[in-house]
């Protein structure tokens, strides 16, 4: 049976197609003001990759913050449920999921079947979101990919960027740049405090066995390295962390059809 999941995030929209629970195609596009179109485009990309046609798909599940705008979805569910489901399906040992998207950051606890048993989201401020990292990248004009490695080079000098508010944290960083501080050291400071906040989220739901890091930011070694150190456990990062939500959505759709 073929089902699809579409995850409409604030920055990018992802689609995944699964055949009997196995992924057969995926597509990622930037979320345009026209979310409906973005959803369709990501879907088409996934169809191309899977070599399937639109009417092969029996069920479409929408998720992500733009889920309400997907008219062709048969059902919608929260990204929280989807990330739990998707991550757990990729690695059966996963009980805790950390998802960092564009607008928010969540820690999710799930059972052996990938069902949510607890979750927390960063209700205060964007410190710890993809958007925040983007803005830091803008500030020191470098690419998002460079941030992580750079932050690992500056660890010898500790600059406190402690503010819990994204705007103030940026202000701190600006001042340090103006004061001519070493960019790597600044990033180290920013990532240290970021890691502490994320750690706090994870602690609230607790960890056992494997923790999966999903979402666009998961590839950032600056955060991963710090978290593995502070948590004292190996973090599982899916090959394609961005599409975990869409993948989970497709699976939830598939289950609902049985």
């Amino acid at each position, binding site marked *: 049976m073929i089902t699809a999941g579409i995850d409409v995030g604030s920055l990018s929209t992802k689609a995944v197609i699964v055949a009997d629970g196995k992924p057969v195609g995926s597509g990622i596009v930037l979320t345009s003001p026209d979310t409906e179109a973005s959803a369709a485009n990501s879907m088409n990309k996934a169809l191309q990759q899977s070599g399937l046609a639109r009417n092969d798909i029996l069920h479409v599940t929408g998720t992500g913050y733009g889920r309400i705008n997907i008219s062709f979805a048969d059902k919608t569910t929260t990204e929280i449920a989807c990330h739990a489901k998707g991550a757990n399906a990729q690695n059966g040992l996963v009980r805790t999921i950390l998802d960092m998207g564009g607008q928010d950051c969540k820690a999710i606890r799930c059972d052996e079947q990938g069902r949510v048993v607890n979750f927390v989201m960063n209700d*205060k401020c964007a410190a710890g979101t993809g958007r925040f990292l983007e803005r830091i990248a803008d500030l020191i004009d470098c690419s998002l990919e460079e941030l992580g490695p750079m932050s690992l080079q500056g660890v010898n000098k500790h600059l406190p960027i*402690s*503010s*819990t*508010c994204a705007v*103030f944290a940026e*202000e701190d960083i600006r*001042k340090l740049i103006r004061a001519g501080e070493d960019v790597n050291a600044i990033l180290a400071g920013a990532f240290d405090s970021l890691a*502490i*906040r994320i750690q*706090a989220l994870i*602690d*609230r739901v607790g960890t056992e066995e494997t923790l999966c890091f999903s979402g666009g930011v998961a590839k950032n070694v600056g955060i991963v390295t710090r978290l593995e150190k502070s948590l004292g456990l190996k973090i599982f990062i899916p090959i394609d962390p961005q599409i975990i939500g869409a993948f989970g959505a497709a699976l939830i759709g598939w289950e609902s059809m049985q």
Partner: protein
Amino acid sequence: MKVQENAGLIYIKHEIATCERRIKRIKENPDPSKPQSNILLYEMERDFRIEQREACKTGKPVGIASMGGLTRAMGMVPWDAIMSADRTHGKAATQYFETIRKEGIPEHTCDRCSILIPMVQQGDFPKPQFTFMSNFECIPVLFAHAALCHTMDIPSFNIDIPIKSFKMDNDEEGLAYVVEQLREMVAYIEKTVPGTKYNEELLVELQEYDRQFLLEFRKLWKLKATIPCPLSGRESFREIRLPSMYPDPAKAVDYMRLYLKEIEERVEKGFSAAQPEEKLRLLWSVAGPFYDDPFSWLEQRGVSIPAAEMTVYNGWFSGREAMWGDPWPGRKLTPLEEEARQMDFVWGREGHYWVDTHLHSCRDLHLDGIIYFQQWGCPTSNSLGKVIADTAEKELGIPTLLIEGRMLESSMFDKKDFYGRLEEFTEICAAKKANRQTSP
């Protein structure tokens, strides 16, 4: 967070060590700009902490968040978590706040109230056998304690004080009402806390010490009016504890007498805290950024802080309002009535009392402006800031700086912004002062 009663008591350990260090420093190389009497003060503080530590060991009951006299008269050791939380600024505060955010403890209320909870739950500070709270302490203090008691199963008793001040109006009905509740509390403690018994003689004795102490303190208030101001901002800001809080109350009275003598000497020498000379005299109100040192910053720019309106015993209140043994129309008050009278203070009353307090201080001490620190999550003081500013402008022609901030948690503190605002304000005070002097 794992709740661990009296695990480690690291706060107590740390305080004892700090006092020892300070005593040593003053004895070995004293700083002439700081009072020598501090030796006594640190010894008192140290012995108080030792007493608390021993009580935890021996199981001697600890309790009641204020009113040292009544606590000791009940056979308990005073438990001052809220005042102690004030001293956890800097790194310690940051760590507590990580826990606070993790545990969902309210983080946007008064810092000291947020910190109080993990401080006791983690066992850094003793778990009390009993707490008492009055509605006059303010909502955050009241409910931080309520939350602590409810989550750690600590017996507690709340006392209600009428909003119309029975103390100022000498209202027998209000007084009787509070005394009745005090009696109920005494009975409740004797019933619920093993090893407690109300000892009125002891209460009378301790009240006398507190009275002696405050008599001296009133003289200090007059000295604060001297130009230039002989007290440093830090001294004005120091949270005074009454003798009855300490294991050796007599020593506390000696300390105050000695300190007073030192200040008198400063006055004779014409000592000025503000350098190079006193240009402005400002009142600091409510709280301040305890993790930084705005007072030195101001003093280096010729600004002195003769008084801080923050707690009962720093500001005008203690200098002027009735205290133990002071007259009450028609009769002498009983010991419990005296306690009750002290529980009615400006903080919990209708707003105009808090406004007047500021005007009185500014008049008494010839001040040129008010720095009103709007501490995050302090409902009692926050929304009166503008009223005080307008009234001070209207009545005394002096400006008020309303400045937001946190008291212990420094992560949101922006030095440049904060001192930028202080500087702006001192410029305005100077401009207005110059104007006052040219145009009579």
